[in-house]
């Protein structure tokens, strides 16, 4: 079980969180024209990276905040966690 440092609450067990997918995906702006390909890429197409990966988690049974977590998908090492409004650097 992972140990995730919520930027709001501190170290918490994985079972308080739910996984939310790739954190680098940006939702296209509402009302903007977008090609089929670009839309499909947003909705469906994800890279399955091995190694460092920025992903979203929601602290569901805690502060309910969505957070960004940089995790190694192979080793599960967590390098960094950010608040929802903090930019991935």
């Amino acid at each position, binding site marked *: 079980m992972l140990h995730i440092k919520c930027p709001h609450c501190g170290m918490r067990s994985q079972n308080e969180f739910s996984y939310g997918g790739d954190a680098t995906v940006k939702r296209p702006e509402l009302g903007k024209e977008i090609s089929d390909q670009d839309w499909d890429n*947003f909705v469906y197409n994800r890279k399955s990276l091995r190694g460092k990966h920025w992903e979203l988690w929601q602290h569901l049974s805690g502060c309910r905040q969505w957070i960004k977590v940089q995790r190694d998908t192979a080793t599960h090492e*967590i390098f960094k966690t950010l608040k929802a*409004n903090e930019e991935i650097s």
Partner: protein
Amino acid sequence: MTQSFRLESGGLINRDKKISFKFNGKNYYGYEGDTLASALIANGVHLIGRSFKYHRPRGFFGAGVDEPYAIVQLYRNGETEPNIKATEQELFEGLEAKSVNCWPSVNFDVGAINNFLKIFLPAGFYYKTFMWPKSFWYKIYEPFIRRAAGLGTASIKHDKERYEHKYEYCDVLITGSGPSGLASAYSAAKNGAKVILAEDKSRFGGTLLTSEVNIGNQSGKEWADSIISELKEMPNVTVKNRSQVFGYYDHNMLVMSERISDHLPKTKKYHPKQRLWYIRAKEVLISSGSIERPIVFGNNDTPGVMLSSAAKEYMKVYGVLVGKKPLIFTNNDSGYETAIEFKKNGVDPIILDTRKEPQSEIIEEAKNMNINIKNSYVVVAAQGYKKVKSADIAKISDDKEELGSVENIKCDCICVSGFWTPTIHLASQSGNKTKFNEEIDAFVPDISKQNEKTLGAANGIYTLEETLKDSFEKGNLLSKKITNNENKVSFPNVVEKKSTVHDKFWCVPLPKGKNYKRFLDFQNDVAVSDIEIALKEGYRSIEHVKRYTTLGMATDQGKTSNLNGLQLVSKIENKVVPAVGHTTFRPPYSPVSIGAIVGREVGKHSKPTRKSPMHSWHEKNNAVFVDAGVWLRPRYYKCGDENLFEASKREAKNVRTNVGVCDVTTLGKIDIKGPDAAELLNRVYTNAWLKLPVGKARYGVMLREDGIVMDDGTTTRISENHYHMTTTTAQAANVLSHLEYYLQLVWPELNVNVVSTTEQWAGAAIAGPKSREVLKKLFPKSDVTNEGLPFMGYMEGDLFGVKAKIFRISFSGELAYEVNVESDYGYFMWEKIIEAGEEFGIQPYGTEALSNLRIEMGHVAGSELDGRTIPYDNSLEGLLSKKKDFIGKRSLSRKAFAAEDRQKIVGVVPLDKKTSIPEGSHLVKDSNAPLPNPKLGYISASCWSVEYDNPFSLAILKDGKNMIGEKLFVMSPLKNKVIPVEIVSSHYVDPKGERVRS
């Protein structure tokens, strides 16, 4: 029976307390402190079961967790449990155990015929033998495997025992209480670290209980006892026996199973049987020791062949002789310690040492005791079927290839020592890659991936002095780092006998003309010949060889077999062992009961049960409840001897003709506040929300980004910047997360707050043509006329002094209202509604009637919004705004979603107006078409229409738009039904929606 193999004195058992037990129906006695294994051996019982594949007789091989054979079925306090190691099961009064893998009995076993039909079960037998013909599977192969396989029978009864889970944090977790565990725990504890010391066995001390050493002028055991009692006194230390740390998971979390009651005849009141600990440790010190390796020779699985360390443990801990004519077969000095122990107890052993002229302090001592030692000798084969009777032995050449002439000597046990294998399971589970140590022919932990260090024998350090030094130091260093406190322990004086190098010999060659089975894996019956076949057939990767032959699989996890298997592969392949590599060790290290894994999450405790504030009223009024997600909801209220069908029909009919009341507390409710609340709704719902006036409700549909309908519900504008959203019972949590996702990550600029208020409000739906009359009585001061509170209107009211929210919304399709009050007033509200409605014939209705009513109205619910349908499919396309963008809109223009003949919701009526249509049935054009019959659609929900008094269903049908009036067939292969039907509009009752507006 007498305990004829029990020594006169000695051991750590309590001879004052005799314990009676039963094995295979026979009564025996043992002593308190015995294991089932030691008590059986004391009684001369060595035949304990049959092997997995060949059903060969099985005895005892080890004395603890390393035991591959002696697995029994245990009976305790009216329960039965499979897969119990006799070497680990402590004896208790009235214990009962039986052999497994044998039929009809352990002494006469039909399956042993396999032993003579070896051809039937070669390596890879699962893959080869049972492949074809296919028809053999059900009648021959499967019953055969079922009978032959398995390590016991799981109980089919509900387990009455209680199991618990515990979460714990500590600075240093230490796994094993041998010398390294004790020393490191002691120095870490002295530095003030929070320490957990876990010992799998009932006794602390590990090898200190059986070795002849001296620490600080005390015997090993005395020293262990004094350290343990000191540790137990320290407030920062938790010491646990009967506790196996079996898994090392991510982020330094380890799981330990504590056997609290397994050694007792009956679990004490208020105690659990077992407790599973989830331990998050800052540092882990693995002090799991090492396991003696077997040497491979002919018939080495015969009962009476066992590890030499086990024979010593049975003498020193249990005061039991494993035999009275022991043969010790060794390639190192450890065998001598066992021989010396035999001699001290008045038994004359013979030592066969594969080494030519070994010399050490221990060997000197054995010689001085006049023990018969044969150098450069090996056991070629054990003889005897159910118990060792003699051994074929021979001299072996210096290059270990040639055997001399074979002679037979009498013996009743063969104690084998092939040197020691560090127990690296936990280190390997943690991600440590491990490295091969040439000196000890075994893998040891290498670079740590997590905060883990391995100590002592588990790290390949086999001398006590070095082990203690290293462990004191590691315990000190690691804890100092955490506590910033140093309280150094002075190192005690250590006395131990020096040993010399071992011989790398591990497998005795077959004598000419003999074809003895030489086993590597005793639990899975994998012999040298099986590995040879696998390699001949082209298997190379050790992981493939493992799966093909089953070497090192199952509950044993290769504890005794792993290294010899690797040695063999490396020899045949002409590779060094590290190049072959070892297979992955997987948790659990040792079997864990399912009960412990499940813990308290059983039955009703597996999830919380949520009840509405009106629950007790429903109970008092004969409600029959149904699980709706985590909620309990009344399904119907039973009158007399009504069944579900009759009751729901009565309740639904009463809504259509008079008035009914339904508990709708379970609906998800989300409070939305802020200046941008309307903007949020406008983006997440498909229809327009910016112009909804205060005091009005609106129905909305929410999509996922992929265009699939996520949820529907009504949202009411309570005041300028305050909305009250309702969701379906099932989707409440998901919708909240969905809103939070967009607010926090996508549109942080929106000034809106959302919070779940599901539990804050109790809700009652009052539905039916007379509902307004009821409302008038409930709220005499409010104007609830059609003008004062029109359809989709909202107002606040005063319910006899309680503030209420009144919504004029309808799920039933009738004139209807929903009244919400704060949860604590829910019961009060409900009673008032029933009281006021009495003169109008009010009746409560449950979810079944609720479904009936919504189905015949064509209102969609979870069975249509099932994660596969878009708005068009549910005839909700009228709610898709063309003027604005919303979540999921772009997906709706995808080709398949815009197809002309897209599926759509329709109504379905059986032509005979009688036959009920099973939900989930398929719609087809021709019921006699050859299979696979093209499926046009499926029945999503069925009911008995109370309006027309005939069955009615909703279906999602391909090109549903153009199918109205068509005649099709409903087919349910599950229920073996074919029903001719007509397709009608999904709005079966009141298609214009006049009633809700009346």
